[in-house]
């Protein structure tokens, strides 16, 4: 019917607009970083020098800082987030469920700049006193070297972890909900303990859980404000948790409005492009994992993995 075609085209146009925005972002980022791409090529990803004066630009310190802080955040956040998801989905009494869900969402709702504010005035001094209280023998290790500034990788990792926990927890909870109840019932019927039954469910949902964790990772990669307020903004790639470092998002936020020559600007935008590509890959992969898991669950509930009870 003609009217239906009008409807289809009408709404389709808006959908196209959405696609156009995404394509536009990728296109603009590439176009505005051509100078830098042409000059540095692939070396851009490996060079450690960031020298606006000499016109030497290398994104390595920022890529390092972004990956280091996000992985650190994940290491802290993933177990806690999964623990929360398990608790809310499986273990907690019914009347606690809604309040706990509300509280985790509250954690997610706090704006990034407020996290940063709290970070500067509360977290960083705490980390600083932690640094000074460590005995010198430990301070000599590569992981803890450096003057006790407080600002640095540790503070950034901690803040990112707190920000990522509610995100990963809620997705993990959704994933756990989609595990067919028959799985757990079968486990319990065979005499499994809480741990063993839940492990079976987690194992079944493993691709989804990994997807949830990766989505949290993607979120941490792009986080700007809270990180730039506590990481120390120094372009150096260091192993030490206490060393001030830099992330891709933070350097763009700090230096973008003043990049006075074309090459500088293009180098910064190229960092934005790198960030865009990395988050694109991580997010797509994680959604693929979650989708695969959901897809598998929608098929007939396969027999649960042998309850760990038999193996114990």
């Amino acid at each position, binding site marked *: 019917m003609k009217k239906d075609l009008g409807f289809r085209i009408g709404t389709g146009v808006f959908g196209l607009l959405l696609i156009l925005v995404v394509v536009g972002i990728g296109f603009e980022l590439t176009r505005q970083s051509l100078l830098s791409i042409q000059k540095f090529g692939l070396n851009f990803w490996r060079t450690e020098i960031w020298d606006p*004066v000499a016109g030497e630009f290398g994104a390595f310190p920022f890529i390092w800082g972004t990956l280091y802080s996000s992985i650190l955040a994940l290491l802290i956040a993933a177990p806690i987030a999964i623990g929360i998801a398990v608790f809310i989905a499986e273990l907690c009494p019914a009347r606690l469920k809604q309040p706990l869900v509300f509280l985790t969402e509250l954690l997610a709702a706090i704006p990034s700049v407020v996290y940063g504010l709290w970070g500067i005035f509360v977290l960083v*001094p705490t980390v600083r006193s932690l640094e000074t209280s460590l005995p010198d023998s430990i301070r000599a290790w590569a992981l803890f070297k450096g003057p006790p500034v407080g600002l640095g990788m540790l503070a950034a990792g901690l803040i990112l972890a707190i920000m990522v926990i509610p995100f990963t927890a809620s997705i993990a909870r959704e994933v756990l909900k989609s595990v067919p109840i028959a799985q757990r019932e079968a486990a319990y019927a065979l005499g499994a303990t809480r741990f063993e039954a839940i492990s079976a469910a987690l194992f079944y949902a493993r691709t989804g859980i990994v997807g949830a964790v990766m989505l949290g990772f993607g979120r941490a990669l792009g986080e700007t404000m809270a990180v730039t307020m506590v990481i120390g903004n120094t372009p150096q790639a260091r192993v030490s948790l206490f060393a001030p470092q830099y992330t891709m998002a933070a350097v763009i936020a700090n230096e973008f409005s003043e990049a006075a020559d074309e090459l500088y600007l293009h180098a910064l935008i190229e960092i934005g492009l790198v960030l865009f590509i990395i988050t694109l890959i991580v997010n797509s992969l994680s959604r693929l994992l979650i989708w695969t898991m959901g897809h598998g669950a929608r098929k007939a509930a396969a027999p649960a993995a042998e309850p760990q009870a038999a193996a114990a």
Partner: protein
Amino acid sequence: MKKILLVFGCVVGLVGGLAAQTMKITGAGATFPYPIYSKWFAEYNKLHSNVEINYQSLGSGAGIQQLRAQTVFFGATDGPMTSQQLQDAPGRILHFPTVLGAVVPIFNIPNVKTELKFTGQVLADIYLGKITKWNDPALTKLNTGVTLPGSDITVVHRSEGSGTTYIWVDYLSKISPEFKSKVGVNTSVNWPTGVGGKGNESVSGLVSQTPGSIGYVELIYALQNKISYGSVQNMAGEFSSATVASVTAAAAAAAAQMPADFRVSITNAPGKGVYPISSFTWILLYEAPKDKAQAKVMMDFMKWALTDGQKFAPELGYAPLPEAVVKLEMAALAKLKLT
């Protein structure tokens, strides 16, 4: 829901319409003069209530860049634009000095409240990462009456393009050839060591919160935030503190030989009673700005700032411009193409 939106839209439109009567000018740039500029724009707004000059202290580098992109009407910088930058701009840009200020070395050492003495060489070595502890012999030699701790020095610098940085490295490069070759003179440099803060505001924030740190900021930031700052040895060998008098003395020689485009460095100026890390700070304007109405208002503001505005300088730690310089500027302002 719809009604609320309608009312909201009407209110916004109405206020927006009313606002059209106001002259709004946007400028961006240096954090070095931000305290006095914000005072000036507020005072000027009191005198001319329909003029709102919105100044954002993003750093000298941003001021230059946004002026070139023409997203702001005027820029502000303490590091004069290079010939290359001037060439790349879409129109001719003129520098107008507004005040004189000083960059002081601030520090935070628990239990040390006296004014420490520094030389240019010592500061250069600290910022090169060669002197790493507070009780280094070079420092203790200069400050014999003070017990300096053996703790590490945390170096704080600017993370973005900054005129304050320009003044600082300009001075250090004049003293230390090694600093000049390793770091160089620019608004944004490759720092060998240290932590970065955005803006004078942030450097003062970092130093005041980090024990054992050293940084460089415009004098007023140290005064307003009650941070200890040191004296620096000048060319005449005296250890000079930044004061209105010592900064004015630094400009005395330059005032007599001001170049036509007003771009001049007065760091490490010769003479007695001179503070060696002093500098002019400039407002940048296009010679032929596109918006003539805004240009007229801006010129009127500049005339006010160079005369009546100067009286606000001393209480905020800046030194007023020498008379000779003001005269030259008024002549230059008259040459702006406003029609």
